[in-house]
């Protein structure tokens, strides 16, 4: 019960917040939730399976375009939202078969290349609306229930995030999760212990893509239009920054990282648009903060915020301290 307490508290705060926020604050709240959703996937992929993806923005884009295309053609929004993660996962499955043969920086560049190719194609093809993109995506609705205001989208986003976190937690705790951790350390060793390396990598790649796709779908309904310009390469970098800052391979770390970065950028945006600041100030400040936070965390807090902070707290649950104090039984003999 004690262990569930922080989760319950976080849930209660999350549910209560939209009632107190105005529309511009709600927009930040929604984007924070969407970023967290993608970052959980990045954290799972990088932290557990040890695969670097610089193309998570591509799956976000696939989700957004899927939801947009389906509903602009008159399809039901619910189908659009459900199709978004499915399409993103299917896309990841198709590109993952050749790409996941690569590892390390090769995979990073290959995923980056995938995003660039996708954006370039979306900017040229007729049915995606070219560079202008898709306009007039309807509000999200399910049956007779229509999500009107920003508060509705906030609940939708955070419900999606809760689902994503739950799925991730269960994957981590399962046999497959242990297999993933094993293959992150050594694929050869994992394979020789019977972990189906290729299949697991592909599955977790698709899962993280599905998370990004779901976020993209909600994004499309909330903003109402999608264009290639909405998904720059920097977006994928942002997710890496958030995952690394929060702590790779931790579910809460991903959420914390997304929150810290989003709020920091938001504060700097306010500072940057103060009267007397040059017009380029908001952009410059956000670039600088992404970069500096990323560099400082990688160099000085390589485990990320959440694990580092958690490690400093007194071990209340009596899990880490006794283990450290007791001499290892194997060493005594």
């Amino acid at each position, binding site marked *: 019960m004690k262990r569930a307490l922080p989760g319950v508290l976080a849930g209660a705060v999350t549910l209560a917040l939209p009632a107190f926020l105005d529309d511009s604050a709600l927009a930040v709240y929604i984007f924070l939730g969407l970023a967290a959703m993608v970052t959980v996937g990045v954290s799972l992929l990088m932290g557990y399976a040890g695969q*670097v993806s610089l193309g998570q923005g591509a799956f976000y884009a696939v989700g957004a375009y899927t939801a947009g295309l389906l509903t602009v053609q008159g399809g039901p929004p619910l189908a659009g939202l459900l199709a978004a993660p499915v399409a993103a996962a299917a896309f990841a499955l198709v590109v993952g078969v*050749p*790409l996941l*043969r*690569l*590892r*390390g*920086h*090769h995979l*990073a*560049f*290959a995923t*980056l*290349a*995938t995003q*660039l*190719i996708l954006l*370039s*194609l979306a900017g*040229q093809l007729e049915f995606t609306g070219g560079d202008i993109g898709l306009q007039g995506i309807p509000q999200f609705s399910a049956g007779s229930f229509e999500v009107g205001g920003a508060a509705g989208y906030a609940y939708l986003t955070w419900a999606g995030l809760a689902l994503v976190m739950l799925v991730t937690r269960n994957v981590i705790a399962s046999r497959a999760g242990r297999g993933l951790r094993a293959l992150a350390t*050594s*694929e*050869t060793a994992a*394979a020789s212990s019977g972990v189906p390396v290729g299949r697991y990598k592909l599955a977790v790649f698709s899962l993280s893509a599905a998370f990004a796709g779901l976020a993209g779908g909600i994004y499309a309904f909330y903003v109402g239009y999608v264009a290639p310009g909405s998904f720059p*390469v*920097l977006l994928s*970098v942002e997710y*890496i*920054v958030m995952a*690394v800052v929060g702590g790779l391979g931790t579910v809460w770390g991903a959420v914390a990282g997304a929150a810290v970065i989003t709020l920091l950028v938001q504060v700097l945006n306010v500072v940057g648009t103060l009267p007397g600041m040059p017009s*380029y100030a908001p*952009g*410059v*400040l956000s*670039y*600088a903060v*992404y*970069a*500096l936070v*990323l*560099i400082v965390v*990688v*160099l000085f807090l*390589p485990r990320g915020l959440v694990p580092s902070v958690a490690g400093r707290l007194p071990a209340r649950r009596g899990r880490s301290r006794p283990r450290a104090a007791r001499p290892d039984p194997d060493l005594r003999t």
Partner: protein
Amino acid sequence: MSEFLTYLVNGLAVGCGIALIASGLVAIHRVTGVVNFAQGTFAVIAGLSASWLLGAGLPHGAAELAAVLIAAAAGLLTGLVAIGRRGTAPQSSLIITLGVAVLAYAVEIVAWGDQPRSFPGLPGSVTLPGGAEIQRHHLLVVAATAATFVLLTLFFERTYPGKALSACASNPYAARVIGIDVTRMGLLAFLLGGLLGGLAGVLVTPLRPISFDTDVLLMVNGFAAAVFGALRRPGLALAGALLLGVAETLAAGYGYAAYQTEIALGFMLVVMVVQASRRATIHEEAV
């Protein structure tokens, strides 16, 4: 036919620019094991500062030289951040150079604005016997690249620092045993990378205007070429870069300009996947 020849030389010039970026990547990766994501940034910094220095009244030649030196300084700084701290894993260094590249955006916008900049290259053009017209600047790019590669070969094979760099590349442990400071050699490699990237930027900017976010495209092209030489062999990287440059320019010349990016990136993906399928996992993990 004359049209084809023009495209060919243009393509070779573009390819030479890519080759310089790729050789910087290879130099850094060989010695440090780090893939330097900020390699395109060096070119952008050099291009932008050359155009700024020319605008400030410096003569041609001096401005370009100063710009290349600025890029080399940027390379050294990147190296200090990326590998200066003991025990930084190459994977972490990659993420740090990613951070450096984004940080450079902020610096570049403050220093030079966010609009594309360019400056005139070598003016005039020559007509070949077949009737093909070739801009002099394209020839300059090709000649400068050829000279650079000759100098690089001499540097690596005839000078002490060059040999020390090669030693670190082939076996860092053994290099350290015989008294070579591997970290310092890594920094030297980053300096060299900055120099090469800067040279590419100065040569390419007159061909196509450059802005702060051009670095992604330059970097991806350079990486595509470097991958052709498995990120270790400058000669193969040069071949890959020339192939890439010619293919892109021909595609653009014959009406597929919009698909330039897809061609370059598709090429890179195919090369990488084929290479990966020919390597055993266990070998790669051991390295």
